[in-house]
């Protein structure tokens, strides 16, 4: 327990003491991570980050890694505002967009201005600070959810304006002027080039993004452990008390907003340079949800959580793109979940055997009942997924039946979680698991993009239920 205890009361401290006494490999792991100094963690992250392009020349993987670094930077900015200072800012992505558009204006033929990247970045950060202050001003009057909706409004206004300001009548111009490029955005931006280094390839950009991420993380770490960081935490825990203790709450809030906005602006500029273009759709609410999911998954106010959250939120959907791999992972996940949750452990084996037998019995019955609705049995099969497809009774009308099965599956899962009796639940789990693999083969694996989002949704719910403070968040009691 090397961390300071500011912002935690005795109850929390005792709780943490108890939770620190975990035994087994988890306890050992926790002990190692406790002893490792912070710089070692940073070094580890940097080492892994630097090593990725050396281990693989696959640009796709490097691109995903770059995306993770970019999102981690952005999430770090949001973490300052929401995690450290506790201000629920739903307009955060607008700052990212401002950064992107400012970069686009200052380095493209759209405006005819081509500034050196270094200067552009300084301007972007300056404008980010300014916008953060502007948006922070209402935060001085508004609390909680009111602040959330006003900032959300700002975010929406930003996207709307960028989409629709294509024909604006400006004084001094005869024709309406296209200010933002509208839905077609601004394209053909200058590449990122600073101090004689010009980023051309994906790997170049990856290193730039990684460097910025590391810088921002270090800044965030020191901010968190500084006077300001402590003041922010006191503000987050109890604004009234902080005020009474003489904290300059107004300045602290504005500072949080401004710094968060500057970081977002910087990441937006990097994003624009990397993509080579900006579109209003890049900065919409889906991104906001993603960033929030990252910091909440990782744990609000947690620095390593930002990285873990970004890896999870970016990498998992990418992995699920590969259908065959996704299928294997899917079944593996089910089996691991069963083993982890069912006690005694032999139950999971018994359950799996029962499900397989259930399927083997069910298929001939269904085929016998209505032979017309099933395709001829495939005699040979190879591979894991094919075996499962053969085991399942997949009708010709797979799509329609799969949709019905999906509805039934949701009901079954909800039902199973409500059954208290062990034996009844065991029996109910058999058809549920059968349905699960049926739905996976008929529908989910057919629509990977939808399935990914479905899983993100389920993941968010399940994670919040089991770890409401995120994976690496500090457990703390809310002051009521």
């Amino acid at each position, binding site marked *: 327990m090397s961390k300071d205890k500011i912002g935690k009361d005795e109850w929390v401290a005792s709780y943490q003491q108890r939770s620190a006494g975990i035994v087994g490999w988890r306890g050992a792991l926790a002990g190692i991570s406790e002893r490792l100094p912070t710089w070692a963690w940073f070094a580890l992250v940097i080492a892994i980050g630097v090593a990725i392009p050396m281990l693989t020349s696959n640009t796709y993987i490097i691109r995903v890694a770059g995306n993770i670094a970019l999102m981690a930077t952005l999430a770090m900015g949001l973490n300052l505002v929401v995690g450290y200072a506790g201000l629920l800012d739903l307009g955060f992505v607008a700052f990212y967009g401002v950064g992107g558009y400012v970069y686009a204006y200052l380095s493209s033929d759209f405006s005819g201005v081509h500034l050196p990247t270094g200067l552009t970045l300084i301007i972007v950060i300056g404008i980010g600070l300014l916008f953060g202050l502007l948006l922070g001003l209402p935060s001085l009057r508004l609390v909680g959810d009111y602040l959330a909706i006003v900032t959300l*409004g700002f975010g929406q*206004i930003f996207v709307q304006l960028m989409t629709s300001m294509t024909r604006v009548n400006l004084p001094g111009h005869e024709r309406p002027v296209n200010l933002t490029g509208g839905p077609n955005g601004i394209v053909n931006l200058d590449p990122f080039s600073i101090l004689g280094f010009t980023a051309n390839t994906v790997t170049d950009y990856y290193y730039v993004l990684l460097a910025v991420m590391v810088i921002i993380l270090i800044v965030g770490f020191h901010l968190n452990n500084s006077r300001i960081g402590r003041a922010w935490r006191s503000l987050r825990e109890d604004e009234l008390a902080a005020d009474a203790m003489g904290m300059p709450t107004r300045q602290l809030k504005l500072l949080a907003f401004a710094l968060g906005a500057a970081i977002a602006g910087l990441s937006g500029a990097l994003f624009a340079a990397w993509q080579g273009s900006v579109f209003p759709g890049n900065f919409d609410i889906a991104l906001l949800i993603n960033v929030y999911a990252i910091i909440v998954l990782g744990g609000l106010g947690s620095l390593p959580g930002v990285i873990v959250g970004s890896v999870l939120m970016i990498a998992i959907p990418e992995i699920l793109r590969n259908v065959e791999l996704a299928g294997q992972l899917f079944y593996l996940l089910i089996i691991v979940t069963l083993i982890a949750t069912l006690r005694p452990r032999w139950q999971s084996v018994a359950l799996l055997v029962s499900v397989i037998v259930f399927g083997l019995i069910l298929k001939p019955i269904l085929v016998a009942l209505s032979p017309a609705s099933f395709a001829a049995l495939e005699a040979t099969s190879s591979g894991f997924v094919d075996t499962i497809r053969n085991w399942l009774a997949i009708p010709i009308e797979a799509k329609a039946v799969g949709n019905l099965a*999906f509805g039934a599956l949701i009901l079954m899962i909800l039902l199973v979680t409500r059954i208290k009796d062990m034996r009844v639940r065991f029996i109910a789990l058999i058809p549920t698991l059968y349905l699960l693999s049926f739905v996976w083969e008929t529908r989910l694996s057919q629509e990977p993009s*939808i399935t990914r*989002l*479905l899983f993100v949704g389920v993941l968010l719910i399940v994670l919040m*239920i089991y770890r409401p403070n995120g994976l690496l968040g500090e457990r703390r009691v809310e002051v009521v």
Partner: protein
Amino acid sequence: MDAFLAQLPQQIINGLTLGAVYALIALGYSMVYGVLQMLNFAHGDVYMIGAFIGYGVMVALIPEGAPLITPVFIIILMLLVAMLGCGLLGVAIEQFAYRPLRNSPRLAPLISALGVSFFLQNAVQLTLTAEFRNYQTELLIPPGAGFDFGDTRLPMTRALVIVITIILMIVLQYLVRRTKLGKAMRAVAIDREAAAMMGVDVDRVIIATFFIGSALAGAAGVLTGIVFTRVWHFMGFTAGLKGFTAAVVGGIGNIPGAMLGGFLLGMTESFAVGFISPTYRDVIAFVVLVIVLLVRPRGLLGARIPQKV
């Protein structure tokens, strides 16, 4: 000025229709916020499901382009089934996604709600595809039906939406002001713990609140379908945002406030479309929101409760 006056009544009608839908959505937001102090971000998707349930009932009862029973009954049935379905859905969401999080940090239920929203949207997209579906309103209500007031025209569909909304609001007001359940709801909204100590079954009240709020959203979904005909899996997002905005403008947690906020937002949008420019519709709506909140930080009818320490 003449053009303005000539258009004004028509824009008011449009605003009332839009506002009615927003107000119904806002009520659900506001009621849930009242008892749980949480933002139910999945509310917009419950509304979307309501629109689809209404669509399903309509398709089932108009199989070959000819209604099986009197159109009035079809409309009533659509509303009732959608309200019941959405009510149950709302209760299920509360049970499975929010109840385990009742004593968690404030952001946890918010993220869980986002998860539910993702799930519902994509579940609908998976099973029903991302296509637009069209309500066959013309088979239920003759397209020409309506009332004329000079140059202004109040189409039957819009009149229906406004009337049904007002009926639902009166019923809700009666429920909240005059029944025992309503009393319990108000008690829980003011102080959950104190209410529990006085013998109020808080869990039951929360379930009832979710049921009523979601049922109203379901009704809003069907009404949207009847007037604007087009429904799709992503419609809940913007509508939910607008409903939320309306609830906040009126003062979140405040039922008359949600109604007022809804109608105000609807009017603002319709005036923005009619008199300024349709492209800036959402921008103007949000600018009004920001201005209202800057002048009255707790919404129009929100009480100035001193902060509890």
